[in-house]
């Protein structure tokens, strides 16, 4: 059953045509990977799903993005609640200049959870989920800026998990992580699949192959091919896809 439906989506940054006639349906409780060369529009598409592109003035969008058959670009949509349903992890770690605890508790607090015990619980669960708990459990009051790059990114993942979203958007979430943490995160992603729909942008084709159920390959703002991961990597329909995944590209 598809939870996200993208239909004839075009996106412009000013005059620049960044997404061209994108259509795809993303299945509920599955993992979908977006792959493609740098600048092809993967991050841009990801951001249309939780309307983060609203923030960029020059963006113009046509077409429809529906979640559970509701067009999220419908003017009556409550963007904040939408984003609560859709967690996001960015390409660059961007912790708040607050303590580790406050970083993770930020989302739940925003959404009205005040109870200290409940917050403690959420923070612990989320940090465990992001494979960071053991390293920081004694230092929750420490500033997040004291962490290494990798630790910071894991903190950002924990922060996204803390709002318990339905869909999780991840923009190269592991590109700043070491293999151990990456592995943990990948395992976690697999686990989460039971409850969540996950969309992940990655440069690491092995990662896409390892974790995802379906993969979309982008080029210059277009979806070249979108199919089951196993099919796409073993037997792509398109020549371009094949060139890319075999590294024979460019």
């Amino acid at each position, binding site marked *: 059953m598809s939870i996200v439906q993208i239909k004839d989506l075009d996106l412009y940054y000013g005059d620049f045509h960044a997404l061209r006639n994108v259509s795809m349906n993303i299945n509920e409780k599955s993992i979908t990977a977006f792959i493609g060369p740098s600048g092809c529009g993967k991050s841009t598409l990801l951001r249309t799903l939780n309307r983060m592109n609203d*923030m960029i003035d020059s963006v113009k969008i046509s077409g429809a993005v529906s979640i559970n058959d509701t067009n999220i670009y419908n003017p009556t949509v409550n963007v904040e609640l939408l*984003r609560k349903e859709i967690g996001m992890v*960015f390409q660059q770690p961007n912790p708040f200049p607050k303590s580790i605890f406050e970083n993770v508790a930020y*989302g739940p607090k925003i*959404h009205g959870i005040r109870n200290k015990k409940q917050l403690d619980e959420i923070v612990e669960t989320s940090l465990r989920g992001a494979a960071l708990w053991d390293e920081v459990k004694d230092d929750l009051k420490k500033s997040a800026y004291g962490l290494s790059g990798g630790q910071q990114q894991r903190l950002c993942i924990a922060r996204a998990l803390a*709002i318990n979203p339905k869909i999780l958007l991840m923009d190269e979430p592991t590109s700043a992580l070491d293999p151990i943490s990456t592995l943990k995160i990948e395992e976690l992603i697999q686990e989460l699949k039971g409850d969540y729909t996950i969309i992940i942008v990655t440069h690491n084709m092995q990662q896409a192959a390892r974790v995802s159920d379906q993969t979309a390959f982008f080029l210059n703002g277009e979806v070249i091919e979108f199919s089951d991961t196993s099919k796409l990597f073993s037997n792509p329909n398109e020549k371009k896809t094949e060139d890319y995944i075999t590294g024979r590209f460019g």
Partner: protein
Amino acid sequence: MMQLDAEKQMRRRKRKNTIFHILFLSSTLFGIVALALLLIQILVDGLGWLNWDFLTNNASRKAEKSGIKAAIFGTLWMMSITAPLSFIIGVSTAIYLEEYAKNNWFNRFIQTNIANLAGVPSIVYGLLGLTIFVRVFGFGKSVLAGSLTMTLLILPIIIVASQEAIKAIPGSQRNASFALGANRWQTILRVVLPSALPGILTGSILSFSRAVGETAPLIVVGAVAYITTLPNSVFDKFTVMPIQIYTWANLPQEEFHNVASAGIIVLLLMLLTMNAVAIFLRNKYQKKN
């Protein structure tokens, strides 16, 4: 060959760096030396007059009986309205302009307008306060009228400084917050403002200092030069320290010029306390990367 060239060039760059290091350091020292000279002059003149009586007496025609009590309380009364009010209005305006305002002609107009207000001479604010607060609003020549005038006077500085502080917060922080489902206001309140606070405080302190030291506009809106009672409410008459100091400095008798210096010392002590509070707050919030 190349190596030698590079080293020669490097020596030049290093020398340039050293020269400028010295220049920059001297610039800083220049300000400090100027401050030291001013302070020494003031301390030499005023320290002898500074005692408990000076703090607890009112103004008098006799230098040795003169004190600054009414002025201290007047300044405190005024700042207790001006500081919070200008802070709230200033930061609110800065938030509006940086976080909400679209880049249209109206908001650019407000922006230019604020920058321009920062350059309007203080006496003009005095005329404004006299017309609007004293006469039209009927507050009379009261603490309230004086405080509101001062609020308008220092507002542009707080706004501009706060705007710069808010601008400096990286967009990635805002994005992180929005992506967690925070609305704009929550993002401002919980992410933008805490990070911008050190900068905002710097601007505020500078402008509060200015409010504490201003004379001309307050004379115009009717802070009086001689009063012996303390205000009981915001509708009472008052005087402030710089007016008292100004009055003393203008008298012909030499002793009064020293009394004025004593007054300046008290004023500076008050500023110092204010700065100390702000620096404490600033360091508390300034978590550097």
